[in-house]
Every structure is written in C-alpha cells, then in structure tokens.
C-alpha cells in the first residue's frame, strides 16, 4: 500500500508544498526556466533582488568560475519595484507556487518603501529581506554584518510588512548566530542563510582581477560545508524556522541541510548547471523519505544524530 507522505513545511504562516525553493538571483523571475520544468511543482520561487529604484548593476565582467563554484558581482541589477509591480508581477502572480520577492536597498527608507509596496500584492505571500548582498557599495551587506544594523532594518520593515518576513543573512560575519538572534528579536518570521561568501579571483598572466569589482560573492558546492555549519549553529540559536542554502546540488545535500536544522532549502548556483534541478531535488527528497520510512518531512528537520 502506498503511504501518503507529507512533504509540506511552514515558514511562519507561509506553507510550502515541499521544502525546495529557488534562490534569489539564480532563477530570474521563473519564466526563464519554463522550457525546462513546471514552476507549479516548486515549493517557493524567490525572484531576483528588487530595489526601490532601477539599478544597472556592476560593469562586466561579473562572473568568474572557481573550483567547485563561482564568484559573481552582479550588483543587484533590476528595474526597480515599480517596474516589477507593473510589468512582471501580472505574469507570475498566478503560478501555483509561493512567489517571494527578495528586497534590497541602500538605506532603511528604501527597504521600507519597497516592502510596503510589495505588501499590497496579493500574489506575493512573503518577502526575503536581503541584508547580505556583498556586491553593492552602499547598504546591502552593511545592514547584515552588525546586530544593530540588522535590528534597525528588520524592525522598520516589520512595521509596514504584515506577511511572512524572511531575513537573508550574510556569512561574512564573526558570529552569524548573533545576527540571526537580532533578526528574530526584531520580528523576522524566518531566516535564510547563507548569502555568498566574499571572495576574489586573479588572472596571474594578466596580473588582473577577474571581476570588475575585484571582489565578489562565492557560491556553489565550494561553500556547502560552511553553509551547513552556519545552518546548524543558527538553528540551535533561534526558534524561528531556518532556510538553508549554499551549494545544494542534489537531494542528498538538501537532506543534509534539513538534518542540520533547516525547515526548507534553496537551490541557487545549481540552476545554472541543471535548469531542472529543483524538480530532481524534490523527487530525490521523496525517494529519501521512502527509503528511510519518513512519513512527514518535518521529522527530518534538526534530526541529526549526535
């Protein structure tokens, strides 16, 4: 007899049909991937980082391949929240997944105004507050590297945003649990981690940096052990659900993050290698549940045996 297995998880009031989400900046607005998969099967789609105003991003070159990973320095290129509301939202609001907007900004007022505008959109049940982008000169990561910075922006956004608020944390800190606790105390419903690690690549022959910005954000399997460690630490430190990301490439990686304490996971750089990776990971998680006779996926969250 086939047993009914529960794969759905909750982040605050947000219900995901499965714990697999796409990481911001790696999946566009979802529409780029419709040739490869059915968006309706994905637990959550976190769309490209959105700011109050249009941003051109950083100059080319913005990418460098590194061992088991890549550096990027895109710098939050996007057309601004008003363009999103008028031109992108109408075409994605009816996707049967959770469309989540990643919100970024240079100053607190920008975050607040962007979040306020998105709060009005019925088809967006959550935002991911990006206080951890390493590729912008002002704002971005600067809010995410001190507890006071995190508190200031999360509290201000919480006042105007009444749906699920996920705060995306930076790994470029001394103690990520302090920032996570500050986000929790300021009203976050969930934290997601990790954003990219600040890194650098050099072309020795030309004696030049490979990125126009010299430094950029490292992602891919190279960062997975660090991400796992941080998810483990943060899930011990806070009561709100944790979303794990950083180098997840397959179902086994996803399960590892859940055992470490993540209630859901995000796939980022993996989308560039296999555009249908989300569906594969959803299937591989279900296969793991069958193999280990797990009837409810929530049983796996933090189930690490020590």
């Amino acid at each position, binding site marked *: 007899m086939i047993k009914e297995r529960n794969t759905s998880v909750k982040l605050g009031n947000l219900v995901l049909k499965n714990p697999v989400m796409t990481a911001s900046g790696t999946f566009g607005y979802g529409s780029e991937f419709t040739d490869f998969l059915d968006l309706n099967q994905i637990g959550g789609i976190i769309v490209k980082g959105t700011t109050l105003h249009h941003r051109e991003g950083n100059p080319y070159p913005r*990418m460098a*391949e590194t061992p088991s990973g890549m550096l990027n320095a895109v710098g939050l290129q996007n057309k601004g929240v008003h363009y999103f509301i008028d031109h992108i939202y109408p075409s994605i609001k009816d996707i049967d997944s959770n469309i989540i907007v990643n919100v970024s900004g240079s100053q607190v007022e920008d975050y607040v105004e962007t979040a306020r505008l998105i709060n009005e959109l019925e088809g967006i049940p959550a935002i991911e507050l990006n206080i951890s982008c390493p590729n912008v000169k002002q704002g971005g990561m600067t809010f995410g590297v001190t507890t006071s910075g995190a508190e200031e922006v999360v509290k201000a956004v919480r006042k105007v945003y009444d749906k699920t608020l996920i705060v995306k944390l930076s790994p470029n800190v001394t103690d990520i649990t302090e920032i996570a606790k500050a986000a929790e105390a300021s009203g976050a419903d969930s934290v997601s981690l990790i954003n990219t690690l600040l890194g650098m690549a050099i072309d020795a022959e030309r004696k030049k940096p490979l990125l126009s910005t010299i430094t950029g954000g490292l992602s891919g399997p190279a960062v997975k052990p660090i991400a796992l460690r941080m998810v483990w630490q943060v899930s011990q430190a806070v009561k709100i659900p944790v979303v794990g990301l950083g180098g997840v490439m397959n179902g086994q990686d996803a399960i590892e993050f859940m055992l470490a304490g993540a209630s859901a996971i995000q796939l980022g750089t993996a989308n560039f290698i296999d555009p249908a990776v989300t569906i594969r990971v959803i299937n591989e998680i279900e296969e793991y549940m069958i193999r280990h006779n797990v009837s409810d996926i929530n049983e796996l969250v933090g189930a690490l045996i020590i």
Partner: protein
Amino acid sequence: MVLDLTVKSCEMIHKQYALLKLTQKDQLPEMHAGQFVEVRVDNSSTTFLRRPISINFIDPQDNTLWLLIQVIGDGTRALAELQVGDLVNVILPLGNGFSWPIKKDQPILLVGGGVGTAPMLYWGKLLKQKGYNPSFLLGARSKNDLLQLSDFAAFGTVYTTTEDESHGVKGYVTNHPMLKEGDWQRIYVCGPKPMMMAVAKEARGRKIGCEVSLENSMACGVGACLCCVEDTVDGNVCVCKEGPVLDIDKLKW
C-alpha cells in the same frame, strides 16, 4: 531543452581545435545560425559551469550538430577528448541567432576570426540555401589555423587573411581589400573583440548594416544570472538571451 546527445565523432582538426559531432535517435530540434549550446563537462575536476559553444553546423543528412572547440582550458580539453559513443548533456538551442538580410540580389559578407569562424559555416549554408549570396572573409594567425576552408567554399567565395602571409592577404581581416571595397548589403562578424570592433567601425564608416556575435563569459545561458551583460544603448542586456548576436547600432563601441 536539455538533451543527452551521443558523440558521433570527435577529431582534432588542428593541434588546438577539435570538431565534435553529436547526434541522437530523434531528429535534432530546429536551430538557427548564431545560436549556441551549453555543454556540460564531465571528467574535469576544475570545470564547474557549462561551456557555451556556438553552433558550427547542422548536418540534416546524418542528424548531427557540429561544435568547433578551441582547447583553452580543462573544460574544453575534456570535451576534445570525448570518445565515439560517449553521452554529452547539452542545453539547446540558446540565444537569438543572426537576423535575415533583406535583399537577395546584393552580396553579404560573413567575417570570422580564430574560432569565431565557427557560426559562419552554418550561417553561410542557411543563407545560400535561401537564395542569398554569401561570401566569407576568414582570418587566422597562419594557414594551419584556417579551419574548414573546403566546407566554407561549398557556400560562397572564401577570402582569407593570415598574420604571417601563409594564406591569402597578409595581416588582419580589416586589411583585406574586399572588406573595404565589396558592395556588401550586410556584414556579420564573430571573433576576438578587437577584430569585431575594427570591422564594426569599417561597417559604420561605409553605412553597411552589421551584426556581431559576442562571447561574454556566462553562467546560466538563459538570462537568469545576469553575468554576461553587455553595456548597450538600451542599458545592460544579457548576451545569452538578448544576444549573442547584436546589431552594432545597439553597441557602445
């Protein structure tokens, strides 16, 4: 779409270049000249991302997709070492491809430099097939670096330049009199950036419409990661999605 294609043949046609022919049982999907594919590279520990490779040729007779691969690093080396029967995971077709010229009676020039000659073979074939009149201007360091010359000759006149004067006119493609004198309706270019810039300048000066095929380094290939942008008159555009072929009127160079 994502396909597992089978290696039909993989030959080094020069010490630095491999010609990889891929096939499958079903008919290959329709592809346009100037589009590209993203090839997954297995058996290379240092290669993480897919390799974007332009479509060199589609042979409908034996249902093969040809990729001309310049061996530069570990990824392209692993591709050049593929064996007959190996499976290769490929996303295709990607990007926009060249746009069709208007007039059938006025000649068209296809300019290629180095491995940038690759997309011009298939484009030459399609143009010839549709009744256009393409010619080719191919540049390389030396005569051994001029690839697939007899294949090109089947679709139009071939002019060449080599830096050491071992084949055709000495120098770069911009030194060839046919670039400056031909009554070209339209020019299509693919090659090293300085070469494309020089040809674009020449085309602009002569008020000839011109398209270039860019090869900015990229990750996703589908317009999601925004890594491969080119700064244009319309702002940053993704070379993988809105290109790789761009009209020079859109470019800032």
